């Protein structure tokens, strides 16, 4: 079984088995845009984003986009409210979903221009309307403020 897991079908079946009658509708788009980087990576400001949180959250707690200066990053992140494979793996190594140290190394060796001053924590928000109208515009504002040329996005 080397095909990718079909998470949409798997998730629908799983929640149907729990008695939920209205299946979640994942975002679906026919169109897509690709902005060119426009300069070498070695001259670019690169930002880092993950879906993990910097504060503990439970399933129904409000979820907030957060930007944190890199010199104030916590040692631990939180993802108890997110769907990830708790049976197959763990989140003890933050580098497995938030490659901050490696990006610092790539900045040091000149592979990237520099890291953005802040990192971004973008919890999965199940309302697509809120994601587009609120969260995305906030992230865009943060990226402009931080002069980000390219954003590396790592969803759990």
């Amino acid at each position, binding site marked *: 079984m080397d095909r990718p897991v079909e998470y949409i079908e798997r998730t629908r079946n799983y929640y149907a*088995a729990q008695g939920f009658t209205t299946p979640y509708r994942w975002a679906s788009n026919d169109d897509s845009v690709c902005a060119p980087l426009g300069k070498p990576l070695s001259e670019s400001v690169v930002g880092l984003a993950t879906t993990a949180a910097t504060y503990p959250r439970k399933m129904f707690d409000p979820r907030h986009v957060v930007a944190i200066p890199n010199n104030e990053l916590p040692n631990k992140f939180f993802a108890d409210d997110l769907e990830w494979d708790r049976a197959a793996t763990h989140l003890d190594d933050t580098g497995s979903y938030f490659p901050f140290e490696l990006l610092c190394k790539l900045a040091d060796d000149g592979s990237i221009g520099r890291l953005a001053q802040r990192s971004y924590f973008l919890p999965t928000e199940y309302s697509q309307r809120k994601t587009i109208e609120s969260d995305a515009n906030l992230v865009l504002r943060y990226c402009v403020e931080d002069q980000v040329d390219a954003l590396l996005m790592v969803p759990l």
Partner: protein
Amino acid sequence: MSLISRVLEQNGIATVIIGSAKDVVELCGVARFLFTDYPLGNPMGKPYDREMQERNLRQGLAMLETVVSPRTTWLSPFHWDASREWKQKYMEIREEDRELLRAKGEERRNQRQSRRSTQPK
């Protein structure tokens, strides 16, 4: 996160997603996607395997410089393990678990209802 990447791209900021839910990301339609075929939770690679994580990172960053067409997916060459057992196990519905799943769903609906009824109007 995929939806947010689309808004950034529309505003001139290049993005790359490194992730493991291929169907979800591709359905949303993003610019650049490095698919790492691993259990959800460790899209950069196995915990503490810095070599695997760094090579995935470098591949993802390479997409930023080379990819100019939207909906481009690259596949990481690294496998999680030989068994692939995790692919079958995730959200697996076994007959003997059905009653437990129904109870879990009921508990969740009750929690949600309780939370709604205690929220200020």
